[in-house]
Protein backbone atom coordinates (compact mmCIF):
# COMPACT_ATOMS: atom_id res chain seq x y z
CA UNK A 1 0.00 0.00 0.00
CA UNK A 2 1.05 3.56 -0.63
CA UNK A 3 2.96 5.22 2.23
CA UNK A 4 0.60 8.19 2.48
CA UNK A 5 -2.38 5.86 2.51
CA UNK A 6 -0.77 3.99 5.39
CA UNK A 7 -0.26 7.28 7.19
CA UNK A 8 -3.99 8.03 6.83
CA UNK A 9 -4.82 4.66 8.41
CA UNK A 10 -2.26 5.48 11.09
CA UNK A 11 -3.93 8.83 11.75
CA UNK A 12 -7.16 6.95 12.30
CA UNK A 13 -5.65 4.36 14.64
CA UNK A 14 -3.74 7.16 16.35
CA UNK A 15 -6.94 9.12 16.96
CA UNK A 16 -8.47 6.17 18.80
CA UNK A 17 -5.27 5.55 20.76
CA UNK A 18 -4.90 9.26 21.54
CA UNK A 19 -8.51 9.60 22.66
CA UNK A 20 -8.09 6.67 25.02
CA UNK A 21 -4.67 7.79 26.21
CA UNK A 22 -6.01 11.24 27.18
CA UNK A 23 -8.19 9.60 29.79
CA UNK A 24 -5.47 7.18 30.83
CA UNK A 25 -2.92 9.93 31.39
CA UNK A 26 -5.46 12.01 33.30
CA UNK A 27 -6.19 9.23 35.78
CA UNK A 28 -2.48 8.33 35.97
CA UNK A 29 -1.54 11.94 36.78
CA UNK A 30 -4.14 12.33 39.51
CA UNK A 31 -4.37 8.84 41.05
CA UNK A 32 -0.61 8.25 40.64
CA UNK A 33 -1.03 4.70 39.45
CA UNK A 34 -1.27 2.98 36.06
CA UNK A 35 -4.82 1.81 35.45
CA UNK A 36 -4.51 -1.55 33.73
CA UNK A 37 -8.27 -1.85 33.38
CA UNK A 38 -8.39 1.08 30.96
CA UNK A 39 -8.37 -1.25 27.94
CA UNK A 40 -11.23 -3.35 29.25
CA UNK A 41 -13.18 -0.21 30.10
CA UNK A 42 -12.78 0.54 26.39
CA UNK A 43 -14.28 -2.85 25.50
CA UNK A 44 -17.16 -2.22 27.89
CA UNK A 45 -17.82 1.05 26.08
CA UNK A 46 -17.97 -0.77 22.74
CA UNK A 47 -20.45 -3.31 24.05
CA UNK A 48 -22.65 -0.86 25.95
CA UNK A 49 -23.22 0.94 22.65
CA UNK A 50 -23.89 -2.46 21.08
CA UNK A 51 -26.47 -3.09 23.78
CA UNK A 52 -28.41 -0.12 22.41
CA UNK A 53 -28.09 -0.71 18.65
CA UNK A 54 -27.82 -4.51 18.77
CA UNK A 55 -29.41 -6.07 21.83
CA UNK A 56 -32.21 -3.53 22.16
CA UNK A 57 -32.60 -3.24 18.40
CA UNK A 58 -32.64 0.55 18.41
CA UNK A 59 -30.31 0.93 15.43
CA UNK A 60 -32.65 2.89 13.16
CA UNK A 61 -31.71 3.98 9.65
CA UNK A 62 -28.15 4.40 8.41
CA UNK A 63 -26.80 7.96 8.47
CA UNK A 64 -25.40 8.25 4.93
CA UNK A 65 -22.64 8.84 3.98
CA UNK A 66 -21.59 7.25 7.28
CA UNK A 67 -22.10 3.53 7.76
CA UNK A 68 -23.40 3.94 11.27
CA UNK A 69 -27.06 3.86 12.28
CA UNK A 70 -28.80 6.78 14.00
CA UNK A 71 -29.21 4.71 17.14
CA UNK A 72 -25.46 4.73 17.69
CA UNK A 73 -25.70 8.35 18.84
CA UNK A 74 -27.78 7.15 21.78
CA UNK A 75 -25.44 4.18 22.02
CA UNK A 76 -22.31 6.28 22.47
CA UNK A 77 -23.98 8.49 25.06
CA UNK A 78 -25.13 5.40 26.96
CA UNK A 79 -21.64 3.88 26.73
CA UNK A 80 -19.93 7.06 27.95
CA UNK A 81 -22.30 7.40 30.89
CA UNK A 82 -22.07 3.70 31.73
CA UNK A 83 -18.28 3.49 31.71
CA UNK A 84 -18.02 6.80 33.60
CA UNK A 85 -20.26 5.43 36.35
CA UNK A 86 -18.43 2.12 36.43
CA UNK A 87 -15.03 3.85 36.78
CA UNK A 88 -16.34 6.06 39.60
CA UNK A 89 -17.95 3.04 41.25
CA UNK A 90 -14.74 1.01 41.13
CA UNK A 91 -12.91 3.93 42.75
CA UNK A 92 -15.45 4.04 45.58
CA UNK A 93 -15.39 0.29 46.17
CA UNK A 94 -11.72 -0.52 45.52
CA UNK A 95 -9.23 2.31 45.05
CA UNK A 96 -10.56 4.65 47.71
CA UNK A 97 -10.29 1.93 50.33
CA UNK A 98 -6.71 1.29 49.30
CA UNK A 99 -5.93 5.02 49.42
CA UNK A 100 -7.35 5.33 52.93
CA UNK A 101 -5.15 2.47 54.04
CA UNK A 102 -2.17 4.26 52.59
CA UNK A 103 -1.55 1.46 50.10
CA UNK A 104 1.38 1.79 47.72
CA UNK A 105 0.57 2.78 44.16
CA UNK A 106 1.81 -0.59 42.93
CA UNK A 107 -0.94 -2.21 45.03
CA UNK A 108 -3.51 -0.06 43.25
CA UNK A 109 -2.04 -0.91 39.85
CA UNK A 110 -2.30 -4.62 40.63
CA UNK A 111 -5.86 -4.10 41.87
CA UNK A 112 -6.67 -2.46 38.53
CA UNK A 113 -5.28 -5.52 36.79
CA UNK A 114 -7.75 -7.59 38.79
CA UNK A 115 -10.57 -5.25 37.74
CA UNK A 116 -9.41 -5.65 34.14
CA UNK A 117 -9.67 -9.44 34.28
CA UNK A 118 -13.06 -9.33 35.96
CA UNK A 119 -14.36 -6.85 33.44
CA UNK A 120 -13.15 -8.86 30.46
CA UNK A 121 -14.70 -12.05 31.85
CA UNK A 122 -17.99 -10.27 32.57
CA UNK A 123 -18.11 -8.91 29.02
CA UNK A 124 -17.43 -12.36 27.60
CA UNK A 125 -20.12 -13.87 29.82
CA UNK A 126 -22.66 -11.25 28.80
CA UNK A 127 -22.02 -10.86 25.09
CA UNK A 128 -20.25 -14.13 24.29
CA UNK A 129 -16.93 -14.84 22.62
CA UNK A 130 -18.06 -14.24 19.04
CA UNK A 131 -17.37 -10.98 17.22
CA UNK A 132 -20.23 -8.56 16.61
CA UNK A 133 -20.88 -5.47 14.51
CA UNK A 134 -22.88 -2.28 15.02
CA UNK A 135 -24.25 -2.40 11.49
CA UNK A 136 -23.81 -4.03 8.16
CA UNK A 137 -24.17 -0.73 6.33
CA UNK A 138 -21.63 -0.14 3.59
CA UNK A 139 -19.32 2.84 3.75
CA UNK A 140 -17.88 3.62 0.33
CA UNK A 141 -14.62 5.56 0.56
CA UNK A 142 -14.06 9.07 -0.71
CA UNK A 143 -11.31 9.38 -3.25
CA UNK A 144 -8.83 12.16 -2.45
CA UNK A 145 -6.30 13.68 -4.85
CA UNK A 146 -3.37 11.32 -5.37
CA UNK A 147 -5.65 8.30 -5.39
CA UNK A 148 -5.87 8.25 -1.62
CA UNK A 149 -8.92 6.72 0.00
CA UNK A 150 -10.67 7.81 3.17
CA UNK A 151 -14.04 6.67 4.45
CA UNK A 152 -16.60 9.11 5.86
CA UNK A 153 -16.59 7.04 9.07
CA UNK A 154 -12.89 7.67 9.41
CA UNK A 155 -13.28 11.42 8.94
CA UNK A 156 -15.88 11.34 11.71
CA UNK A 157 -13.48 9.51 14.06
CA UNK A 158 -10.61 11.93 13.49
CA UNK A 159 -12.94 14.94 13.76
CA UNK A 160 -14.56 13.71 16.95
CA UNK A 161 -11.16 13.13 18.53
CA UNK A 162 -10.17 16.73 17.83
CA UNK A 163 -13.48 18.06 19.17
CA UNK A 164 -13.10 16.05 22.39
CA UNK A 165 -9.48 17.15 22.78
CA UNK A 166 -10.54 20.80 22.57
CA UNK A 167 -13.40 20.15 25.00
CA UNK A 168 -10.99 18.53 27.45
CA UNK A 169 -8.62 21.47 27.10
CA UNK A 170 -11.42 23.88 27.94
CA UNK A 171 -12.41 21.80 30.96
CA UNK A 172 -8.84 21.61 32.25
CA UNK A 173 -7.90 25.26 31.80
CA UNK A 174 -11.15 27.21 31.92
CA UNK A 175 -13.27 25.53 34.58
CA UNK A 176 -13.00 25.40 38.33
CA UNK A 177 -13.19 21.59 38.22
CA UNK A 178 -10.38 21.32 35.68
CA UNK A 179 -8.10 23.66 37.60
CA UNK A 180 -8.77 21.66 40.76
CA UNK A 181 -7.92 18.49 38.85
CA UNK A 182 -4.59 20.00 37.81
CA UNK A 183 -3.98 21.17 41.37
CA UNK A 184 -4.72 17.68 42.71
CA UNK A 185 -2.33 16.16 40.16
CA UNK A 186 0.34 18.64 41.28
CA UNK A 187 -0.03 18.04 45.00
CA UNK A 188 -3.07 16.25 46.40
CA UNK A 189 -2.20 17.00 50.02
CA UNK A 190 -1.93 20.72 49.35
CA UNK A 191 -5.20 20.59 47.39
CA UNK A 192 -6.84 19.14 50.50
CA UNK A 193 -5.28 21.84 52.65
CA UNK A 194 -6.55 24.51 50.26
CA UNK A 195 -10.08 23.27 50.87
CA UNK A 196 -10.59 21.19 47.75
CA UNK A 197 -12.51 17.98 48.37
CA UNK A 198 -10.01 15.82 46.50
CA UNK A 199 -12.19 12.71 46.73
CA UNK A 200 -14.79 14.43 44.58
CA UNK A 201 -12.09 15.56 42.18
CA UNK A 202 -10.95 11.94 41.87
CA UNK A 203 -14.48 10.79 41.12
CA UNK A 204 -14.85 13.46 38.45
CA UNK A 205 -11.52 12.43 36.96
CA UNK A 206 -12.61 8.81 36.73
CA UNK A 207 -15.85 9.84 35.07
CA UNK A 208 -14.07 11.96 32.46
CA UNK A 209 -11.51 9.22 31.81
CA UNK A 210 -14.28 6.62 31.59
CA UNK A 211 -16.38 8.69 29.18
CA UNK A 212 -13.38 9.35 26.92
CA UNK A 213 -12.32 5.71 26.75
CA UNK A 214 -15.90 4.61 26.06
CA UNK A 215 -16.10 6.98 23.10
CA UNK A 216 -12.72 5.72 21.89
CA UNK A 217 -14.05 2.16 22.08
CA UNK A 218 -17.17 2.96 20.08
CA UNK A 219 -15.12 4.87 17.49
CA UNK A 220 -12.83 1.90 17.06
CA UNK A 221 -15.70 -0.55 16.77
CA UNK A 222 -17.43 1.60 14.13
CA UNK A 223 -14.91 0.46 11.57
CA UNK A 224 -13.89 -2.87 13.06
CA UNK A 225 -15.51 -5.74 14.90
CA UNK A 226 -16.46 -5.84 18.56
CA UNK A 227 -14.54 -8.52 20.42
CA UNK A 228 -14.32 -9.11 24.14
CA UNK A 229 -10.55 -8.53 24.07
CA UNK A 230 -10.45 -5.67 21.55
CA UNK A 231 -9.83 -2.97 24.16
CA UNK A 232 -7.15 -4.94 25.96
CA UNK A 233 -5.12 -4.92 22.75
CA UNK A 234 -5.18 -1.13 22.88
CA UNK A 235 -3.73 -1.03 26.38
CA UNK A 236 -0.10 -1.16 25.34
CA UNK A 237 -0.36 1.47 22.57
CA UNK A 238 -2.24 3.72 25.01
CA UNK A 239 0.50 3.35 27.62
CA UNK A 240 3.11 4.06 24.95
CA UNK A 241 1.20 7.24 24.03
CA UNK A 242 0.91 8.23 27.69
CA UNK A 243 4.63 7.84 28.32
CA UNK A 244 5.47 9.52 25.03
CA UNK A 245 3.42 12.58 25.91
CA UNK A 246 4.46 12.72 29.56
CA UNK A 247 2.29 11.25 32.30
CA UNK A 248 -0.54 13.57 33.31
CA UNK A 249 -0.37 15.58 30.10
CA UNK A 250 -3.52 15.07 27.95
CA UNK A 251 -2.22 16.99 24.90
CA UNK A 252 0.98 15.01 25.07
CA UNK A 253 -1.10 11.83 25.16
CA UNK A 254 -3.04 12.87 22.07
CA UNK A 255 0.14 13.68 20.15
CA UNK A 256 1.67 10.49 21.54
CA UNK A 257 -1.33 8.51 20.31
CA UNK A 258 -1.00 9.95 16.83
CA UNK A 259 2.73 9.18 16.78
CA UNK A 260 2.11 5.62 17.95
CA UNK A 261 -0.71 5.05 15.47
CA UNK A 262 1.09 6.51 12.47
CA UNK A 263 4.41 4.81 13.18
CA UNK A 264 2.66 1.49 13.81
CA UNK A 265 0.77 1.58 10.52
CA UNK A 266 3.52 3.06 8.33
CA UNK A 267 5.97 0.49 9.68
CA UNK A 268 4.20 -2.07 7.48
CA UNK A 269 5.75 -0.27 4.52
CA UNK A 270 9.03 -1.88 5.53
CA UNK A 271 8.20 -4.77 7.83
CA UNK A 272 5.59 -7.55 7.63
CA UNK A 273 2.32 -6.32 9.10
CA UNK A 274 2.35 -9.16 11.62
CA UNK A 275 5.12 -7.29 13.44
CA UNK A 276 3.43 -3.91 13.61
CA UNK A 277 2.02 -4.57 17.08
CA UNK A 278 5.63 -4.52 18.28
CA UNK A 279 6.12 -0.89 17.26
CA UNK A 280 4.39 0.65 20.31
CA UNK A 281 6.54 -1.69 22.44
CA UNK A 282 9.67 -0.33 20.82
CA UNK A 283 8.51 3.26 21.29
CA UNK A 284 7.72 2.55 24.94
CA UNK A 285 11.12 0.98 25.59
CA UNK A 286 13.07 3.70 23.79
CA UNK A 287 11.15 6.45 25.58
CA UNK A 288 11.59 4.89 29.01
CA UNK A 289 15.31 4.57 28.37
CA UNK A 290 15.89 8.02 26.92
CA UNK A 291 13.15 10.40 28.03
CA UNK A 292 11.09 8.83 30.82
CA UNK A 293 9.34 12.14 31.49
CA UNK A 294 8.00 12.19 27.94
CA UNK A 295 8.36 14.61 25.07
CA UNK A 296 6.38 17.38 26.70
CA UNK A 297 7.10 16.91 30.38
CA UNK A 298 5.18 15.07 33.04
CA UNK A 299 3.28 16.19 36.11
CA UNK A 300 4.06 12.90 37.74
Amino acid at each position, binding site marked *: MDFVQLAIVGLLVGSVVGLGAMGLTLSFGIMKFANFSHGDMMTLGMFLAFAVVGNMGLAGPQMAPLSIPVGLIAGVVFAAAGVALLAAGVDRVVYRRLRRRGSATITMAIASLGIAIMLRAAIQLTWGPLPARYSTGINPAWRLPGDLLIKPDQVLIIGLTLVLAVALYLIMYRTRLGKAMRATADNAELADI*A*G*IDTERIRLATWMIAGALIAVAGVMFAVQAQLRFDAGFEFLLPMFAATILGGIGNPWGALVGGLVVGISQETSTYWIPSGFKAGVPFMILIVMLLTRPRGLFGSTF
Partner: protein
Amino acid sequence: MSALLEVTEVHAGYGDVKIVHGISLQVAPSEIVTIIGPNGAGKSTLLKAIFGTLRPTRGSVVLDGADVTGWPAHRMVQAGAAFVPQTNNVFPSLSIKENLEMGAFRRASGVAQRMEELLAQFPDLARRPGELASRLSGGQRQALAMCRALMLDPRLLLVDEPTAALSPVMREQLFAQIEAIRDSGVAILMVEQNAREALAISDRGYVLVNGQVAVEDSGRALLDNPDVGRMFLGRMDPDVTGDTGDTGGTEDVETTPAEPDEGTR
Protein backbone atom coordinates in the same frame (compact mmCIF):
# COMPACT_ATOMS: atom_id res chain seq x y z
CA MET B 1 -10.35 37.02 76.36
CA SER B 2 -11.70 33.71 75.09
CA ALA B 3 -9.47 31.60 72.93
CA LEU B 4 -10.00 31.27 69.18
CA LEU B 5 -8.09 28.01 69.17
CA GLU B 6 -8.06 25.73 72.17
CA VAL B 7 -5.85 22.65 71.93
CA THR B 8 -6.19 20.27 74.87
CA GLU B 9 -3.93 17.32 75.66
CA VAL B 10 -3.37 16.40 72.01
CA HIS B 11 -1.43 13.23 71.22
CA ALA B 12 -0.34 12.46 67.66
CA GLY B 13 2.20 10.50 65.65
CA TYR B 14 2.73 8.29 62.67
CA GLY B 15 1.66 4.70 63.16
CA ASP B 16 3.42 3.36 66.21
CA VAL B 17 5.73 6.34 66.43
CA LYS B 18 4.23 8.75 68.94
CA ILE B 19 5.59 12.25 68.49
CA VAL B 20 3.26 14.64 70.29
CA HIS B 21 2.55 13.68 73.91
CA GLY B 22 -0.36 15.62 75.36
CA ILE B 23 0.15 19.19 74.24
CA SER B 24 -2.23 21.96 75.25
CA LEU B 25 -2.12 25.47 73.88
CA GLN B 26 -4.37 28.44 73.13
CA VAL B 27 -4.43 31.15 70.52
CA ALA B 28 -6.54 34.26 71.07
CA PRO B 29 -8.05 36.27 68.21
CA SER B 30 -5.53 38.51 66.36
CA GLU B 31 -2.59 37.09 68.26
CA ILE B 32 0.74 35.84 66.95
CA VAL B 33 1.83 32.69 68.75
CA THR B 34 5.13 31.04 67.92
CA ILE B 35 6.18 27.47 68.62
CA ILE B 36 9.90 26.89 68.89
CA GLY B 37 11.94 23.89 69.86
CA PRO B 38 14.70 21.60 68.68
CA ASN B 39 14.39 19.37 65.61
CA GLY B 40 12.15 16.40 66.28
CA ALA B 41 10.30 18.12 69.11
CA GLY B 42 7.02 17.57 67.26
CA LYS B 43 6.37 21.13 66.10
CA SER B 44 5.25 20.31 62.55
CA THR B 45 3.41 17.20 63.70
CA LEU B 46 1.47 19.35 66.16
CA LEU B 47 0.43 21.77 63.41
CA LYS B 48 -0.71 18.87 61.22
CA ALA B 49 -2.68 17.37 64.10
CA ILE B 50 -4.38 20.69 64.75
CA PHE B 51 -5.29 21.18 61.10
CA GLY B 52 -6.42 17.60 60.60
CA THR B 53 -3.98 16.48 57.92
CA LEU B 54 -2.91 14.08 60.67
CA ARG B 55 -5.57 12.69 62.98
CA PRO B 56 -4.79 13.20 66.68
CA THR B 57 -4.86 9.93 68.59
CA ARG B 58 -6.11 11.65 71.74
CA GLY B 59 -7.09 15.08 72.94
CA SER B 60 -9.27 17.77 71.43
CA VAL B 61 -9.01 20.74 69.10
CA VAL B 62 -11.67 23.42 69.50
CA LEU B 63 -11.88 26.24 66.99
CA ASP B 64 -14.11 29.17 67.85
CA GLY B 65 -16.19 27.04 70.21
CA ALA B 66 -16.67 24.13 67.80
CA ASP B 67 -14.98 20.78 68.37
CA VAL B 68 -13.04 20.22 65.15
CA THR B 69 -10.83 17.35 66.34
CA GLY B 70 -9.81 15.15 63.42
CA TRP B 71 -11.89 17.03 60.87
CA PRO B 72 -10.65 16.60 57.29
CA ALA B 73 -8.72 19.56 55.97
CA HIS B 74 -11.40 20.84 53.65
CA ARG B 75 -13.83 21.14 56.56
CA MET B 76 -11.23 22.94 58.68
CA VAL B 77 -10.98 25.46 55.90
CA GLN B 78 -14.72 26.03 56.04
CA ALA B 79 -14.50 26.40 59.81
CA GLY B 80 -12.13 29.35 59.36
CA ALA B 81 -8.62 27.90 59.59
CA ALA B 82 -5.91 27.90 56.94
CA PHE B 83 -2.56 26.15 56.78
CA VAL B 84 0.67 26.95 54.97
CA PRO B 85 2.97 23.89 54.98
CA GLN B 86 6.72 24.36 55.08
CA THR B 87 7.51 22.88 51.67
CA ASN B 88 5.57 22.15 48.49
CA ASN B 89 3.12 24.84 49.46
CA VAL B 90 2.21 26.09 45.97
CA PHE B 91 0.89 24.26 42.90
CA PRO B 92 3.92 24.46 40.58
CA SER B 93 2.16 23.85 37.26
CA LEU B 94 -0.59 26.35 38.01
CA SER B 95 -0.24 30.08 37.45
CA ILE B 96 -0.16 32.61 40.28
CA LYS B 97 -3.77 33.48 39.57
CA GLU B 98 -4.82 29.83 39.45
CA ASN B 99 -3.03 29.13 42.73
CA LEU B 100 -5.08 31.86 44.35
CA GLU B 101 -8.27 30.54 42.74
CA MET B 102 -7.54 27.16 44.33
CA GLY B 103 -7.24 28.93 47.68
CA ALA B 104 -10.73 30.27 47.05
CA PHE B 105 -12.17 26.94 45.93
CA ARG B 106 -14.70 27.07 48.77
CA ARG B 107 -15.67 30.65 48.08
CA ALA B 108 -18.70 31.44 45.98
CA SER B 109 -18.30 35.19 45.49
CA GLY B 110 -15.81 37.99 45.84
CA VAL B 111 -12.92 35.89 44.56
CA ALA B 112 -11.58 38.52 42.16
CA GLN B 113 -11.90 41.25 44.76
CA ARG B 114 -10.08 39.28 47.46
CA MET B 115 -7.35 38.39 44.99
CA GLU B 116 -6.87 42.06 44.19
CA GLU B 117 -6.69 42.99 47.88
CA LEU B 118 -4.01 40.40 48.56
CA LEU B 119 -1.98 41.03 45.43
CA ALA B 120 -1.95 44.76 46.23
CA GLN B 121 0.48 43.90 49.02
CA PHE B 122 2.70 41.82 46.71
CA PRO B 123 3.59 43.82 43.60
CA ASP B 124 6.00 41.08 42.56
CA LEU B 125 3.13 38.65 42.20
CA ALA B 126 0.59 41.19 40.96
CA ARG B 127 2.77 42.14 38.00
CA ARG B 128 2.48 38.76 36.27
CA PRO B 129 -0.55 36.78 37.41
CA GLY B 130 -0.14 34.32 34.52
CA GLU B 131 3.35 33.22 35.59
CA LEU B 132 3.65 29.56 36.64
CA ALA B 133 4.39 29.12 40.33
CA SER B 134 7.29 26.82 39.45
CA ARG B 135 9.13 29.85 38.07
CA LEU B 136 8.93 31.91 41.26
CA SER B 137 11.76 32.52 43.73
CA GLY B 138 11.64 31.08 47.23
CA GLY B 139 10.38 34.29 48.78
CA GLN B 140 7.74 34.79 46.10
CA ARG B 141 6.54 31.23 46.56
CA GLN B 142 6.22 31.75 50.29
CA ALA B 143 4.27 34.95 49.69
CA LEU B 144 2.02 33.16 47.18
CA ALA B 145 1.46 30.33 49.64
CA MET B 146 0.39 32.83 52.31
CA CYS B 147 -1.92 34.63 49.88
CA ARG B 148 -3.42 31.30 48.84
CA ALA B 149 -4.17 30.54 52.48
CA LEU B 150 -5.69 33.98 53.04
CA MET B 151 -8.09 33.79 50.08
CA LEU B 152 -10.93 32.55 52.28
CA ASP B 153 -10.48 35.22 55.00
CA PRO B 154 -9.53 32.70 57.68
CA ARG B 155 -9.56 33.74 61.34
CA LEU B 156 -6.65 31.46 62.14
CA LEU B 157 -3.57 30.92 60.01
CA LEU B 158 -1.20 28.04 60.77
CA VAL B 159 2.26 28.53 59.27
CA ASP B 160 5.05 25.96 59.29
CA GLU B 161 8.55 27.47 59.18
CA PRO B 162 7.79 30.23 56.69
CA THR B 163 11.36 31.54 56.59
CA ALA B 164 13.17 28.18 56.38
CA ALA B 165 14.75 28.74 52.98
CA LEU B 166 14.86 32.53 52.88
CA SER B 167 17.69 35.03 53.03
CA PRO B 168 17.76 37.41 56.03
CA VAL B 169 16.32 40.25 53.96
CA MET B 170 13.46 38.10 52.71
CA ARG B 171 12.98 36.85 56.27
CA GLU B 172 12.54 40.36 57.54
CA GLN B 173 9.99 41.10 54.81
CA LEU B 174 8.09 37.94 55.59
CA PHE B 175 7.90 38.67 59.31
CA ALA B 176 6.63 42.15 58.45
CA GLN B 177 3.98 40.53 56.26
CA ILE B 178 2.98 38.22 59.09
CA GLU B 179 2.54 41.23 61.37
CA ALA B 180 0.43 42.90 58.70
CA ILE B 181 -1.73 39.80 58.45
CA ARG B 182 -2.21 39.82 62.22
CA ASP B 183 -3.12 43.51 62.08
CA SER B 184 -5.83 42.66 59.57
CA GLY B 185 -7.49 40.55 62.25
CA VAL B 186 -6.10 37.06 61.63
CA ALA B 187 -4.63 35.03 64.48
CA ILE B 188 -1.38 33.28 63.59
CA LEU B 189 0.11 30.11 65.00
CA MET B 190 3.59 29.70 63.60
CA VAL B 191 6.39 27.18 63.90
CA GLU B 192 9.77 28.87 63.42
CA GLN B 193 13.42 27.97 63.43
CA ASN B 194 14.56 31.59 63.47
CA ALA B 195 13.31 31.78 67.01
CA ARG B 196 14.75 35.15 67.93
CA GLU B 197 13.13 37.07 65.09
CA ALA B 198 9.88 35.16 65.37
CA LEU B 199 9.55 35.72 69.12
CA ALA B 200 10.25 39.42 68.62
CA ILE B 201 6.96 39.81 66.75
CA SER B 202 5.03 37.24 68.81
CA ASP B 203 2.54 37.97 71.53
CA ARG B 204 3.21 34.59 73.08
CA GLY B 205 5.37 31.55 72.51
CA TYR B 206 5.63 27.89 73.40
CA VAL B 207 8.86 25.95 73.66
CA LEU B 208 8.37 22.30 72.69
CA VAL B 209 10.76 19.60 73.82
CA ASN B 210 10.20 15.90 73.16
CA GLY B 211 6.60 16.37 72.16
CA GLN B 212 5.64 18.32 75.25
CA VAL B 213 5.38 21.99 76.20
CA ALA B 214 8.51 22.85 78.19
CA VAL B 215 7.97 26.59 78.59
CA GLU B 216 5.07 28.91 77.82
CA ASP B 217 5.34 32.66 78.10
CA SER B 218 5.02 35.98 76.29
CA GLY B 219 7.32 36.48 73.32
CA ARG B 220 9.29 39.14 75.16
CA ALA B 221 9.72 37.00 78.25
CA LEU B 222 10.92 34.01 76.23
CA LEU B 223 13.49 36.21 74.53
CA ASP B 224 14.74 37.33 77.93
CA ASN B 225 14.63 33.86 79.47
CA PRO B 226 18.25 32.76 79.93
CA ASP B 227 17.44 29.02 79.65
CA VAL B 228 15.56 29.49 76.42
CA GLY B 229 18.29 31.81 75.18
CA ARG B 230 20.97 29.24 75.80
CA MET B 231 19.03 26.39 74.22
CA PHE B 232 17.36 27.93 71.19
CA LEU B 233 18.39 31.49 70.56
CA GLY B 234 22.12 31.21 70.96
CA ARG B 235 23.20 29.61 67.73
CA MET B 236 25.29 32.66 66.79
CA ASP B 237 25.79 34.22 70.19
CA PRO B 238 24.95 32.59 73.49
CA ASP B 239 24.71 36.02 75.09
CA VAL B 240 21.17 37.29 74.68
CA THR B 241 22.26 40.91 74.40
CA GLY B 242 23.83 42.49 71.33
CA ASP B 243 22.45 39.90 68.98
CA THR B 244 20.76 41.84 66.24
CA GLY B 245 23.54 43.04 63.98
CA ASP B 246 25.85 40.08 63.63
CA THR B 247 23.50 37.60 62.02
CA GLY B 248 23.30 39.49 58.75
CA GLY B 249 26.95 39.99 57.86
CA THR B 250 27.94 36.42 57.11
CA GLU B 251 25.07 35.21 54.96
CA ASP B 252 23.25 38.28 53.69
CA VAL B 253 24.19 38.51 50.03
CA GLU B 254 21.46 40.86 48.95
CA THR B 255 22.44 43.85 51.08
CA THR B 256 26.18 43.75 50.49
CA PRO B 257 26.24 45.67 47.19
CA ALA B 258 24.74 48.67 48.96
CA GLU B 259 27.51 48.96 51.50
CA PRO B 260 30.57 49.64 49.33
CA ASP B 261 28.47 52.37 47.72
CA GLU B 262 28.16 54.11 51.03
CA GLY B 263 31.86 53.78 51.60
CA THR B 264 32.97 55.42 48.37
CA ARG B 265 31.01 58.56 49.03
